[in-house]
């Protein structure tokens, strides 16, 4: 083979790409549009201005990373609710099992992926932070 041929072939590809739409996003000025099924930060769904979660403990049970902490309590109407709902995002592997396990469809995974932070403590998402706004 002519030693020039591979170089020409390589250059062809390079030139072709000069006319194609670039793949790289100019993050953060440009932002990706994540798919519907994207598994990002969790969100606790709200209905009747209350978290839907009934603190059944299925998500902490199924979670393979053991990063969900739930503590149940009884409200004034003797209904069960989660007095504590916490996810340690440093341990979460975004498998989505928790969402799948939830019997009352109280949990979702949002498109939110910008989870960087300065302190480890800030990766512990409390119920307040997880509630859908």
């Amino acid at each position, binding site marked *: 083979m002519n030693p020039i041929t591979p170089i020409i072939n390589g250059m062809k590809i390079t030139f072709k790409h000069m006319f194609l739409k670039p793949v790289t996003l100019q993050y953060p000025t440009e932002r990706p549009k994540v798919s519907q099924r994207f598994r990002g930060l969790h969100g606790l769904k709200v209905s009747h201005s209350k978290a839907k979660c009934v603190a059944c403990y*299925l998500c902490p049970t199924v979670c393979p990373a053991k990063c969900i902490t739930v503590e*149940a309590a009884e409200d004034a109407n003797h209904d069960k609710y989660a007095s504590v709902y916490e996810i340690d995002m440093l341990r979460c592997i975004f498998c989505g099992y928790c969402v799948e396990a939830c019997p009352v469809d109280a949990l979702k995974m949002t498109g939110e992926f910008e989870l960087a932070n300065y302190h480890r403590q800030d990766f512990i998402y409390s119920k307040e932070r997880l509630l859908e706004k």
Partner: protein
Amino acid sequence: MVNVTIDDKQVTAPKTATIYEAAKLNGIKIPILCHDKKLKPFGACRMCLVEVEQMKGRQIPACTTPVTEGMIIRTSTPDIIKARKMVLELLLLNHPLDCPVCDKSGDCDLQNLTYEYKVNTNRFKDEKFHHSIDYNNPLIERDMNRCVLCGKCARICDEIVSFGALTFIDRGIETKIGCEFDDALNCEFCGSCISVCPVGSLLARPFKHKARFWALTKHTSVCGYCGTGCNLTLGVKDNKVLTTIYDENQGFHKGQLCVRGRFGYQFINSSQRLTSPLVRKNGKLMETSWDEALELVAGRLKNGTSVAALATPRLTNEELALFKTLLLENVGTKNFDHSAGFAHSALTEGFVRSFGESASSASILDIQKSDMLLVIKTDSYETHPVVGFEVNMAVKNKGVKLAIISDKRGKLSKLPDATTLVHRPGCEVAILNAIAKTIIDEKLFVDTASTVPGYAEIVKALSEFSAESVAAQSGLAAADIKKLASEYATAEKALIVFPVGQGYAGHNADLASATANLAILTGKYGKEGCGVLCLSEKSNSQGAVDMGFYAQDGGLNGLQILDACVSGTVKTLFIAGEDPLTSYPDRTKVKAALDAVEFLVVSELFLTETAAMADVVLPACSFAEKEGTFTSTDRRVQYIKPAIRKNAQTKTDYEIFSDLITCLGGQAAVTPAEKFSEIAEHAPGYTGLSHIILRKDGAFATAATKPAFVVPKATPSPATENGKFALVTGSVLYHNGTLSQYGEGPMHVCPEGYLELSRTDASAYKIADNDLITVASAAGSMQLKAKVSSRMPAGVVFAPYHFSSAPINTIWTGSPVTMVTVAK
């Protein structure tokens, strides 16, 4: 034995077995929902349907049908599976299916069966139930919407607990489980109904929503309250004991517990637990290091005979044995005791003289094997409720006769055909003597009795106890005493039961000898279903006796130690776990003693009143945090192991004693297991036992009897005076010693001391329930809430001793009966 074929397998089963039992015995599983092995067959749910060839393939319930020779049974044909699925569909029809919020989830028979039979659709449609939920008591929640009407709760409450709080009410589709007049539940809160409920209808409120069943680690243990020695399973999560878990295969009692065992565990993880050693500096208790605290204590223990010690019989055998070594060998004092020195005298003096051994001559298992039970004081039920269940079952299922000699009526009196002789307080020994005399007079004794040492003396001494004279002084009828005597003597097997404890000063060595005399006269000991069973008060009361942790060879006993503190001969007092300020008689004297003693060391779980007076307080560990053995009232030695890790700043009493021995220049103690091997070499009856042997079910330490007649002293009961009441002290069902004050469950249902009096007296003095009344004796006066009840005879009042907030020892100085005045 009969031969049957189950699912093509040739098997044999006992003649009395049901199909369900026969299958279970041979490893074939038939699903059940309404059946419980402790209860009589009921047949309410039809989950256990099977086909029997001889019955032309009809489907019949396995749990109620007895096996017969040659039966050919099929347990899982397609038809049966279909029928079971239908049963589940019908059950789920009105069921709320709120598993996510139901605490039973994970341990629910209905849930498990639904899963197993893959019932995920329902062909039928109907409305759900709308029963209101009973949240009226703090311990048991009743949600009848989830009920499958298996009747287990009503049956256990009737058949075993004999309370009868629950029953089916209403008819047809409206049928539900309810209380009298569909009212709120108000019962003895043993929680037996919760334990057998197959669904989430009955739930323990203290555990409500605390954790899921599958997240709990289960640790077997032994109840740390009374001497019955019930086995427990503790449910632990995150190093906290969150609940007790029912295990129908545990212990002689098959998982049955009383309110204290089931609901009284909260003291283990109480936030009030001591977490650091305290030392008194400038009059105040200040936190300090273990090194400083132990050094200080060790320095004071060098004073030999001026040191004395009191220990609670809630310590393990190993701890008591080590404490004894520390005191005898390293300190050099014989002044140590437990339980105020008198609560164990029935064993250490009474039985030693009468039976030659400081242990009961019968076991709890004898209760159901006997023909007649003679119970001294109805309180036996309250002090040892699970023993009480055995009595209930003996009387109701086995037709055992029950006679009670008591100063008040009680729950046991309500059992079918129970005879209760209600006598004037303090006459027990005289009545027992009169029974013995009747047996002698009417020649109802066995021939061998006359060869027993002391026979001539007893015949002579009993001459003054004719049934007539005793009847006159005790307020009974002579005929009743005689009838009881002949019933006892002529019964094939008969067992005497009496409780002892710090509230029962009259249940002493003399009472023990008086009961033993009856057993020896009629030859009712050393045989199945016979003997005398002394119910010792706390989890290791019998063990403390077996370890010899009581005053011997001239050592001072519990009450003498307090006197010696006042007189100054005892300068250092080491109290391990006792709270004498509340539980020993004569509060003024105890207070004076603790004030007077130069140096007071207390090792405790909590800062009790006694601990608050100490110079050094050492934080100790509960039964759930240590390894060792407890000996139950009938000498079953049982092994306990830590269920949770202890707080790093606390030490077990074993470690405390071991550290002190090293501080005093001795050798550090061996492990508890090795210590137990040492114990097994010396303690009578413990030979051959070891932790490894005891690990699973425990074992009985044997007792050998050497009978002798002993003349029991009958102290005359104080004369009745006009306007005065006879106060008797004792225990209530919900409490045991002073420890249960730190258990939330018991405190929810019985939070404070009270004075129980008869309706007659209440109306004469215009006293109503919960009125604050002033009770005064020669020793002092105090205010107590009134409790009016129908069980007290006129002129007699009862007060429990457990409460630091209402210490009955303000007016009670240790006599079995105290004369008091009552004013509103």
